[in-house]
C-alpha cells in the first residue's frame, strides 16, 4: 500500500517536471535512497494538507462572497469552538509526531555506516577542498586525485571532510546528502553506491568567486575494476610532493589530476576530537604549533 502510494507520488512529480528524473529523487545508493524516501513521504502527506486547505478556501470563497448574499445579511459573531480548534491542533500534532519519528530514525541511519553493507570494511577517503578544487586522498591505497572521485560499488565509503579555506559542502546528490567541510575540524559522511555509473558531485556552500565551477566527477565501478584502477594509478601517476601540493592549493581552477602518495603524509588533516564527558580535548598548543609549522 505504502509502496503503491510512493510510486504514485513519484510518478506525479516526474510527470510534472519533464521526463528525466530529478537527481535527488534518482538515488544510486542506500543513503540517498533513504533521503528520497523521506522526501517522497513528506511530499505525499504535505500535498494532502495543501489540498485540504485549498478545498476549504475555495469553498468558503464561493459560498460566502458578498455578491452572493442578500444586502442585509449580517455575519454572526462567533468566538470559536473548542472542538474545531482541538481538531486543528490535533491533526497537525499527529502529523508532526509521525514526521518526528521518521526524521529521528533517518538521522541515525544517515549518520551511520549504510546498513546493507554493514559487514564490509569501509573505504576511507579524505576529501578536502581548497579554493576552488577538491582533493581526494585514499590513505590505504596511497593515492590522491584532484577534482574526480573513483569509488567501488557495494562497499561503504567513509568520507573525512575538511577545508583549506572557506566552509564548503561536499555533495553528491545521487549518493546522499551533503555535509560541511571546515578548516579546523574533520566531519564524517557515510555513503555507498549500489550500482556503477557516472555522477556529478559539487561544493554546495558558497565559497567565493570560483564557487559555481567547484564541481567534480564521480565514477562508481565494481570493486574488481576499482582495484585495477588503483593498480594502474600506482604504476603511472607521479608522486605528490609537498611543493606540488602547495601549488595546487593556490586559488584557481584545475582539471583532473592523479598522484601517488597523499598529502596526509606531510600535511595531516586538522585534529578535532571531543570526548564524551563534556570537557572537550582542545586543539592544544603543541598540535597547533605543529599545524602552523606544517603550513609554513
Amino acid at each position, binding site marked *: 500500500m505504502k509502496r503503491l502510494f510512493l510510486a504514485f507520488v513519484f510518478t506525479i512529480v516526474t510527470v510534472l517536471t519533464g521526463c528525466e528524473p530529478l537527481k535527488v529523487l534518482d538515488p544510486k545508493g542506500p543513503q540517498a535512497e533513504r533521503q528520497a524516501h523521506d522526501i517522497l513521504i513528506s511530499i505525499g502527506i504535505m500535498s494532502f494538507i495543501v489540498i485540504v486547505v485549498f478545498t476549504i478556501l475555495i469553498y468558503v470563497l464561493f459560498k460566502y462572497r458578498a455578491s452572493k448574499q442578500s444586502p442585509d445579511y449580517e455575519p454572526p459573531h462567533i468566538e470559536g469552538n473548542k472542538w474545531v480548534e482541538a481538531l486543528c491542533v490535533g491533526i497537525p500534532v499527529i502529523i508532526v509526531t509521525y514526521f518526528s519519528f521518521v526524521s529521528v530514525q533517518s538521522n541515525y541511519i544517515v549518520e551511520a555506516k549504510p546498513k546493507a553493507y554493514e559487514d564490509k570494511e569501509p573505504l576511507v577517503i579524505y576529501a578536502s577542498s581548497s579554493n576552488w578544487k577538491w582533493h581526494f586522498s585514499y590513505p590505504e591505497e596511497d593515492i590522491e586525485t584532484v577534482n574526480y572521485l573513483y569509488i567501488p560499488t557495494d562497499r561503504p565509503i567513509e568520507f573525512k571532510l575538511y577545508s583549506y579555506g572557506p566552509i564548503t559542502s561536499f555533495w553528491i546528490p545521487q549518493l546522499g546528502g551533503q555535509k560541511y567541510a571546515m578548516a579546523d*575540524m574533520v566531519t564524517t559522511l557515510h555513503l555507498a553506491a549500489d550500482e556503477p555509473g557516472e555522477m556529478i558531485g559539487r561544493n554546495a556552500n558558497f565559497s567565493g568567486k570560483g564557487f559555481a565551477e567547484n564541481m567534480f566527477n564521480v565514477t562508481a565501478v565494481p570493486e574488481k575494476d576499482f582495484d585495477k584502477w588503483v593498480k594502474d594509478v600506482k604504476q603511472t601517476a607521479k608522486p605528490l610532493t609537498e611543493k606540488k601540493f602547495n601549488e595546487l592549493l593556490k586559488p584557481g581552477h584545475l582539471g583532473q589530476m592523479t598522484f601517488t602518495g597523499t598529502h596526509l603524509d606531510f600535511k595531516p588533516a586538522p585534529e578535532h576530537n*571531543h570526548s*564524551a564527558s*563534556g*570537557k*572537550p580535548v582542545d586543539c592544544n598548543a603543541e598540535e597547533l604549533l605543529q599545524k602552523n609549522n606544517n603550513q609554513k
Partner: protein
Amino acid sequence: MSELFPRKQIMGFVFSLVLTAAALAVYFLDLTFAQGITVLLITAFVQALLQLVVFMHAGETEDKWIIYGKVYFMIGIALVTIFGTLLIFLWDM
C-alpha cells in the same frame, strides 16, 4: 524609626557575602567538576535573585508579574541558547 533603618539592604548584603564565600568553596576545596558546577549554579542564581528582589525592587509595582515574566523569559531563552550551543559544539560532535 524602624522604617528609616535599611534592614532589608543590610540583610541582603550580608547574605550576598555569605553566598560569595560559599562559591569560593570550589576554589579552596577539592571538588569534582560536577559538584563544583552545581555549587556555582546555585550560588550565582540565588545571588542574582537576591539582587533582583532586595535591591532592584522588582516586585514593588503593579507591573510585578510582567517584569518577573519578562526577566524569566529572557533567562529561559538565554539558558536555551547557551545549552543549545553547547549541545551542538561540545556534547554531540
